[in-house]
């Protein structure tokens, strides 16, 4: 075994030097943004523009998806390079595919797996290079956990599909370029055999996007009113959408893995060193120390689970229940940490800190706590998947789909 994340082979030592210098250069003047949350629907233009710009620069070098072939927007590098990149970005609390709010981290590998050669050449490079924003558009008013109950209809008409229906709770506050969507192509077909996956340019006539104000920020309702989508934008074949969904959701359900860490503890400690009650810094309060100890233990576990998934993914030996277990635990930890922040800082923790250089965004951790439990599937879905994959109450364990 080898848990070393720091020491590299000679080749990687050189690469790390290169990446570190590149990051220093490109973070210059924006160091105050280094505490950014790992994904964000916060309406902070400065942060967003910075992250988007950085994403594009990384993309140009092929570093957003370093292991992808160059013709698809990657750099054709190895898992070791990916590791170096991730660990160097983690120094700034950033991680590769979350550089800015696009679902590229999921969509790119799924396209690589399911797309036709033409689709890969047309769609992948701009997505993988971070030039465009893609939204995952699955949830409908009457189908949330039960994604397969999709009611949005796509009817074939010549070279197009005509799409009609409504999705909810998708995207963020800035406009998308592409909607990555599940539709029903055979209303009379059998469940799971009646769905297809569509890549819908957001600027097509008949697409309307309306903001929804949710607790963790803006999400949207998307209306499709007889939208004509070229049939060549169907991904994975007609009525094969559920299989594509499997690949997609495995990544959404924790299967992607990361090596970054959650910087919240560092921020808490910084706050506790700088705040006194009755002339004593909070960091010396034994109750505060106990609470921080709980946070550290749980966050370390989350980080290790996430790293384990990362490893399994890139050696192509998917961990059967790892993703579901991680996602359930991580989200509960995040919820508990919100309460812990209030225990330590009280109402101070409920005030957003727009000066992000300071110990920002405790407010966001707290506010998003109960909402982030459901994004991409609820806690109950995680536990359901865990049970199947771990073989609880069933003779054969369900296998994880192939890693992509």
């Amino acid at each position, binding site marked *: 075994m080898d848990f070393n994340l720091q020491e590299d082979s000679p080749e990687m030592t050189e690469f790390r030097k290169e990446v570190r210098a590149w990051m220093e250069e490109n973070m210059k003047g924006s160091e105050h943004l280094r505490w950014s949350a790992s994904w964000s629907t916060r309406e902070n233009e400065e942060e967003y523009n910075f992250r988007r710009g950085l994403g594009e620069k990384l993309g140009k070098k092929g570093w957003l998806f370093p292991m992808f072939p160059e013709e698809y927007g990657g750099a054709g590098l190895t898992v070791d390079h990916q590791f170096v990149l991730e660990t160097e970005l983690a120094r700034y609390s950033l991680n590769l595919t979350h550089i800015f709010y696009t679902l590229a981290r999921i969509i790119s590998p799924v396209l690589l797996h399911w797309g036709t050669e033409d689709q890969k050449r047309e769609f992948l490079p701009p997505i993988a290079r971070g030039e465009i924003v893609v939204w995952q558009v699955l*949830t409908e008013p*009457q*189908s*949330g*956990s*039960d994604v397969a*109950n999709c009611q949005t209809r796509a009817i074939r008409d010549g070279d197009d599909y005509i799409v009609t229906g409504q999705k*909810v*709770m998708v995207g963020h506050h800035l406009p998308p370029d592409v909607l990555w969507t599940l539709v029903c192509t055979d209303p009379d077909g059998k469940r799971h055999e009646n769905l297809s996956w569509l890549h819908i340019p957001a600027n097509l006539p008949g697409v309307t996007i309306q903001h*929804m*104000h*949710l*607790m*963790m920020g803006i999400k949207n309702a998307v209306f499709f009113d007889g939208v004509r989508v070229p049939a060549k934008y169907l991904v994975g074949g007609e009525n094969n959408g559920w299989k594509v969904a499997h690949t997609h959701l495995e990544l959404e359900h924790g299967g992607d893995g990361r090596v970054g860490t959650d910087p919240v503890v560092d921020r808490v400690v910084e706050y506790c060193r700088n*705040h006194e*009650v*009755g*002339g004593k810094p909070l960091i010396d309060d034994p*109750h505060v120390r106990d609470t921080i100890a709980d946070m550290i233990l749980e966050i370390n576990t989350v980080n290790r689970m996430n790293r384990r998934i990362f490893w399994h993914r890139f050696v192509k030996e998917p961990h059967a229940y790892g993703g579901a277990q991680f996602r359930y635990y991580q989200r509960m930890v995040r*919820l508990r940490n919100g*309460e812990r922040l*209030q*225990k*330590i*800082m*009280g*109402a*101070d*923790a*409920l*005030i*957003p800190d727009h000066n992000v250089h300071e110990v920002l965004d405790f*407010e966001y951790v*707290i*506010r998003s*706590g*109960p*909402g982030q*439990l*459901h994004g991409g599937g*609820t*806690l*109950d879905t995680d*536990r*359901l998947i865990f049970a199947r994959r771990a073989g609880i109450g069933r003779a054969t364990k369900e296998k994880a789909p192939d890693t992509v």
Partner: protein
Amino acid sequence: MDLRLNEDQEMFKKVAADFVQAEAPTTMLTQQFLKKETFLPDLYTKIAGLGWLGMLVPEQYGGAGLSYLDCGVVFEELGRAPVPGPVFSSGVLAAQIVRDGGSDAQKQELLPAICGGEAIVIPAIGDHGAHWGPETVATTCSQSGDTLTLQGTKRHVYDAEGATAFLCAARGGDGGVSVVLVDRNAPGVTVTPHNGYMVSVSEVSFDGVEVPAASVIGETGAGWDLLDRAAEKAIPLLCAYKVGACQEIYEFTVEYTNERRAFGQLIGRFQRVQDHCVELSIHMDRARMATYETLWELDEGLPAEAGIHESKAAASEGYHQACSYSHMVHAGPGTDYLHPLMVHSVLAHTLYQYLGTPDYHKRRMVDALYPSA
């Protein structure tokens, strides 16, 4: 043992429930919370008209002189809405501080006005965020002749928007804490509402504010004891308010399990959804049982200190957890600011540390039960 409400209490409950439905419907509150406009003067005047400010205050001072249980029943209904505004902070807590510490003249001057709603007196106690206790009072108070000068900032004052006056906790030259009545319009007083994941919380600063020395409520330097005793008597009604909130959350959550379908069945059929409801009910009932027993102890003149702190811990934690479990049941739709759950979620976070976090009150409970040698 008898766990029923008496006839009067049933009537109070009905009047309060009808009032809430008519005057503070959920659709209106979701809008007000979204706009962060939670001090509603008209609603407050109507509440004063019903005699719900100063319910515990003796009739001779313009109050209703009711029992704790009577008041608890009303506060529970107010919490269901949840009716915002300083009904508790002025009508119960400030009134109690004045009752316990005020001279007769101060009582005559302040209590009828508090009960009538003309005066909204808001306690501004700790300077810092999380903690509760005399060490959190940093605002200073210096005397020269007959004038006191206040200097300091209270980070988080609940219900300050509508205040006509503050009861400011301030530290004198000798280190003792005093409670000082300060007019809202006195030069040097600034109220700045906070933005964030909370409502009705403002920063209040006292910048060289001068008040007559006679503005001290209670004994100079003995203010912390006064505040602590008064808070203990007031807190159980805040708990009743949170119990009402939990009850409302519980009911609309169970209702939702009987409406929402997934995978061709009602979500209430899923054991995992049932499990969330079980947890929610335990948090609600834990807070409810402790609170009502404490209200009864107070009415009976029995030792209630441990129960008060237990109730506060259970109700603050319970309200917070009830929201979390309800969020688990509602999933996406429950995160929309137009959903009633969001009103509660924001308020539960706001009230979590108001007058001390649950952890603080747990420690106080143990101290009350097992005083250290």
